[in-house]
């Protein structure tokens, strides 16, 4: 599967070495959590996941090319 990870500002603030977009080839099906680990991103740092624009979660199984949004830690108002 061709996966594109889109990292939020809050996530890149704590993973400074990573760009806003990370593309990777992953053998499917795989959970978002597994994909994160393969990308070198600790899942505990990801607060919210979107899959192809819809709200998802880290246990969601991905079986197709997908754009995964990763929202990192952020504060209240």
């Amino acid at each position, binding site marked *: 599967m061709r996966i594109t990870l*889109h*990292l*939020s*500002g*809050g996530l*890149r*603030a*704590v*993973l400074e070495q990573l760009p*806003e977009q990370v593309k990777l080839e992953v053998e499917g099906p795989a*959970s978002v*959590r*597994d994909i994160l*680990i393969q990308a*070198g*991103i*600790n*899942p*505990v*740092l990801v*607060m*919210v*996941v*979107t899959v192809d*624009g819809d*709200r998802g979660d880290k246990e969601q199984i991905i079986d197709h090319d997908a754009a995964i*949004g*990763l*929202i*990192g*830690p*952020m*504060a*209240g*108002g």
Partner: protein
Amino acid sequence: MLYGYAGTMLEVDLTSGRIRKTPVPDDLARDYLGGRGFVARLLWERLRSGTDPFDPENLIVIATGPLSGHLVPASGKTHFGTKSPATGGYADSNMGGHFGPALKYAGYDVLLLTGRASEPTFLVIEDESVALRSAEEWWGRGAITTEKGLKKELGEEFRIITIGPAGENLVRFACISHDFGRQAGRAGIGAVLGSKHLKAIAVKGTGGLPVFDVDGLYEKGREAYLKVRAKPGFAGWTPEGTAGITDWVNQVGAFPTRNFQTSYFPGYQKINGKAVVEHLKITDKGCFCCPTPCGKYGKASTSLGTVHVEGPEYESIALLGGACVLGSIEEVAYANYVCDELGLDTISGGVVAAWAMECFEKGLLSEEQVGREIHFEDLESVVYLLEKMASRDGIGDLLAEGVMRAAAKLGRGSDSFAIHVKGLEWSGYESRNAPGMMLAYMTADVGAHHNRAWALGHDVAGSAASVHDLISAGGGRDKMAKAPVAGKAERVIDLQHIRPLFDCLGICRLQYMELGFEGQNYEELFYLVTGRRMKWDELLEVSERVWHLTRAFSKREIEGFGRKYDYPPRRFFQEPIPDGPNEGHFLTRDELDVLLDEYYQARGWDANGIPTEKTLCRVGLADVAEALKQGK
């Protein structure tokens, strides 16, 4: 010409009714930008040292920033500052909404309030016209009720700030309310307005603002607005707003629960962002020019009644929901509404109520003293306490002083779980295994507030298992490792310059901090508005100057101020977290000293946490260094 600014400071002496308009000094704009910077400098220069927070001479500064009211994403911020009745030191707090832009369109960047009106009063600003009117009929009424009534009386186009009964009754954590749900919540500025008998300020502005490059700003401002909305965080974050972080904060064991006895709330899914959307939300609500409306206006029905309320946002969820252990988002929203109407900061109000309930649980407060039984997990208890605080009735007179003073008066060890720093109650991040966040709370200039530096994400990144560990453990992990303590100072200092910079510019930081709207965008927008070319690092230098100045202000105003004011309550360095992902973790007193020693050294402060003369001179505060030397 000062592009970007309205150009005028409006001074109102509430004792004499005298109104004065003066130009914004060029050097003030150059060296302090606006907003928080103006607040800090004007308080330093104009407040007589030693003035009691409730003395008529205390000064309230209401300041906008150079970007406020312009076509810049989320440019609706207004900054309020004074000498804090909660801490006795520096106070500022900001709010979103539409008040700041309206003030600028009326022609004023800054509003300075001194004196005390002889009777309840409200101030009406309509462009050049400035008038004081009787607020007799509104005194004693709720903050939201008053805003609604004044809009009906004056017209919907007026932008209004109000205080509730808590401000009138000098509750030390009373807030300023605006826009039916936005607050300048922290450090008791609403009580200082109350001490001046000023119930409300209504502003209508119809003028324009000078812009250095109008066409360029229109183009880049629009582009910026769309760019923010295209950020990867937008779709995931905006629907729930800040309430959306509730799950994560629990998962990493940092959610303040049962008066910070622990850091994990098993019922968090009943009070999280999803619950806000599913059970409360009617519509999104945003501030001036905001591309990411985080406000969630909704309706909540509980056993005590039905209310319409904006929120609850994360901090209210954490302190009313977690610290007081409320069982549903409807109950949290109801308590939120009660705070909003009474004019209480939901953070401090929640912490004070939670402290009182723990005192009751431990037998330190009796039913006779309180007037009834009070318990965690009971909305009636929470609302009862909030109402008592706001009216200073019975036990409320003690609670209205805030946890630091209340615990000092009650004694019997109740100070060990009075959760504050410098007299300001702690906001929504339990930090016994988050040393960076702990340091941020310890050194925040207004007291235990998260919006000076939010380091929790970095702490978690430092304490969480490595990716390799996760792979060998099957990708899951329930417990957090002990976070390393050393080496936190530089990061916290960086964050303490970034977040407050937005408060100087008069814009919201969420788009930068949370969505990753890059710093160079702000350099460009700042140039197009003001005509001044300042690099991001140069803007941050202003923020650093303000940081040293606010510390100097507290040094000047608080007898014996220094290191001892930077420690958290004993619970945080004596009691291990009893359960949850951070079970067993806490920071020792020695570890707190490591944090402070590294921080003071990196800041260029002495071992007592006071900026040295050399440091103050380096950041352009030689006059402040001289004043401190002379004990002024």
